[in-house]
């Protein structure tokens, strides 16, 4: 949290995706007020989130929230590609799956919990780094459509490996590793306690959010957004577009991999369909679009909407068999959101807020 404290000292604020260099002429006092207001809101939200496990004892809610946090990180990493660099990947789930399988396999095969956990993280970061670099080098110098297709192809290879290498992965059935999860990781973390896992996911989300926020607002992040707008012009300013896209690809890949590690801890089970399939990439694509492409908070809101609505829509099956096909209902939710929030929930709200502000200015 050091960074936020430092940042709020100047004229830009938490969570504000459009850090425009607003001239500080009029209403400096007002600015400060809204700034602190924003800060207070954030602190309250964070306190509430940290208090949740003390207030809610029902494990299923904790489980739902935990998964929202993890999917948020996964969607945030996807948004770095789609929203901030302007490239579509159809294979992003391979990084997520690599992370999940790394944790699952080390949990099953490595007796020492700490060593296994660190090894899983090391493997995930290493493999995702190299893989995203290679895939990027193969495809990013070509047109964006090739990138989409090559990521799809490579991701499919990983699905096939997970399905066929039965001795290692148990094939399509996947495997459960609840029994081998550490109960005293580093002496104080019980991976079978839902509250502990909740805190891991929450701290993970906050950490990744801050990392991404800093990255987006770094010179590299700004260059990526320019690439999204006009690639040719960025090159003519002396930037190597390929290198920047590679950086974006690697950061997104490693971040998705880490999200996979935490996801495996949460669901204690891996199978090709649950962590590797192309549908998982489509899921984060939906979350990003629903929340708002190219906004920092969008993927978090999107993950929340998708997870909560699918949770309750699935539950409706008990009321009437027509709700067995809950995906159709989800389709309706999706269409409604796109109708009323064409730029995603956060994106549309940002636009409205901005245009209001501009109108206010011109009236003065």
């Amino acid at each position, binding site marked *: 949290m050091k960074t936020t404290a430092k940042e709020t000292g100047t004229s830009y604020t938490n969570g504000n995706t459009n850090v*425009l260099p607003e001239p500080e002429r009029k209403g400096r006092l007002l600015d400060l007020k809204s700034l602190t207001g924003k800060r207070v809101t954030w602190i309250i939200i964070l306190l509430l989130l940290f208090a949740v496990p003390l207030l809610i004892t029902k494990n299923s809610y904790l489980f739902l929230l935990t998964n929202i946090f993890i999917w948020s990180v996964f969607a945030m990493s996807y948004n770095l590609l789609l929203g901030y660099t302007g490239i579509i990947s159809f294979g992003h789930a391979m990084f997520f799956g690599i992370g999940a399988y790394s944790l699952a396999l080390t949990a099953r095969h490595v007796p020492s919990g700490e060593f296994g956990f660190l090894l899983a993280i090391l493997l995930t970061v290493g493999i995702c780094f190299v893989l995203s670099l290679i895939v990027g080098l193969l495809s990013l110098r070509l047109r964006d459509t090739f990138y989409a297709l090559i990521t799809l192809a490579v991701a499919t290879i990983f699905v096939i490996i997970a399905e066929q290498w039965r001795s290692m992965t148990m094939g399509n059935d996947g495997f459960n590793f609840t029994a081998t999860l550490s109960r005293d990781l580093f002496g104080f973390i019980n991976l079978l306690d839902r509250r502990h896992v909740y805190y891991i996911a929450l701290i993970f989300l906050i950490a990744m959010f801050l990392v991404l926020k*800093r990255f987006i607002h770094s010179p*590299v992040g700004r260059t990526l957004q320019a690439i*999204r707008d006009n690639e040719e*012009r960025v090159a*003519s300013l*002396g930037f*190597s577009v390929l290198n920047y896209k590679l950086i974006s690809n690697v950061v997104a890949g490693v971040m998705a991999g880490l999200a996979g590690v935490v996801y495996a801890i949460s669901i204690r089970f891996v199978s090709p369909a649950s962590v590797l399939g192309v549908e998982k990439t489509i899921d984060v694509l939906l979350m990003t679009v629903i929340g708002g492409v190219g906004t920092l908070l969008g993927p978090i809101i999107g993950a929340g909407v998708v997870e909560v609505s699918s949770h309750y829509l699935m539950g409706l099956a008990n009321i009437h068999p027509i709700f067995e096909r809950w995906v159709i209902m989800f389709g309706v939710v999706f269409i409604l959101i796109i109708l009323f929030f064409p730029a995603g929930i956060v994106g549309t709200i940002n636009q409205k807020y901005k245009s209001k502000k501009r109108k206010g200015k011109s009236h003065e």
Partner: protein
Amino acid sequence: MNTTTKDAKGQSHAKETTKEKIIETVNVTKSFGGHTAVNAVSLTIFDKEFKSIIGPNGAGKTTFFNLLSGQMKPTSGKIHFRGKEIHHLPPHKRTKLGIGRSFQITNVFPTLTVLENVRLAVQGKHNIHYSMFRHYRYYKHLEEEALDALERVNLREKSDQPASALAHGEKRKLEIAILLALDTELLLLDEPTAGMSIDEVPQIIEVLENIRDQRDRTILLIEHKIDLVKHLSDSIAVLFHGKQLADGSPEEIMNNEQVQSAYLGGLYDDAEN
């Protein structure tokens, strides 16, 4: 082609005694299928010179620029920049060597603010490339330099607007501000005043005059407004149907019969042969 002798007659206010070549093309050719857009053009531009390229529409002027700045690779021929072969280099490497260009078709970053458009150019110029963990406003001086460039084209008040909200003429000015901020030793300007309203043009001319009078960089200008070209240039090259028709001082070019007939028609039949 012996362009050197022609260029030695450059206009009087080209005071430099050192006539060092900054960029030189040798028989550079670009074909698209059967169509040859640039046909064996050998042109030399001297250091600190203000040179213009004129020619009717479709003469290959912009294609020639694309070959110089790297957006296109020549089909054949060579390009030397300060004695170094550059025709195989991608655009960003040529920019780093010192070749900056503006575009005829407005080519800015629409969703970014006006300031950010220019700030990126300054960032590129200062080689701040792979900084990932610092806030971009840590580099405060970049912003100040960008604001200076905006000041020069009178866009400073619009600095916090998204570029897409600018009027067409203002976008053209932004285009020039980006190039100024890039601060390269060779400036390629592709019709900087195209699409501007008449009252905006003098200001751009003034900007160009100022750069010329500082005499610290080389300018290559594509422009249709002949008065403007005559007024600014040390030398003028004429392209016609992809070929180099003439190259010399403004007076020579204006009195050149071939050039006159190229603009009035008549040469079209010859060019076919």
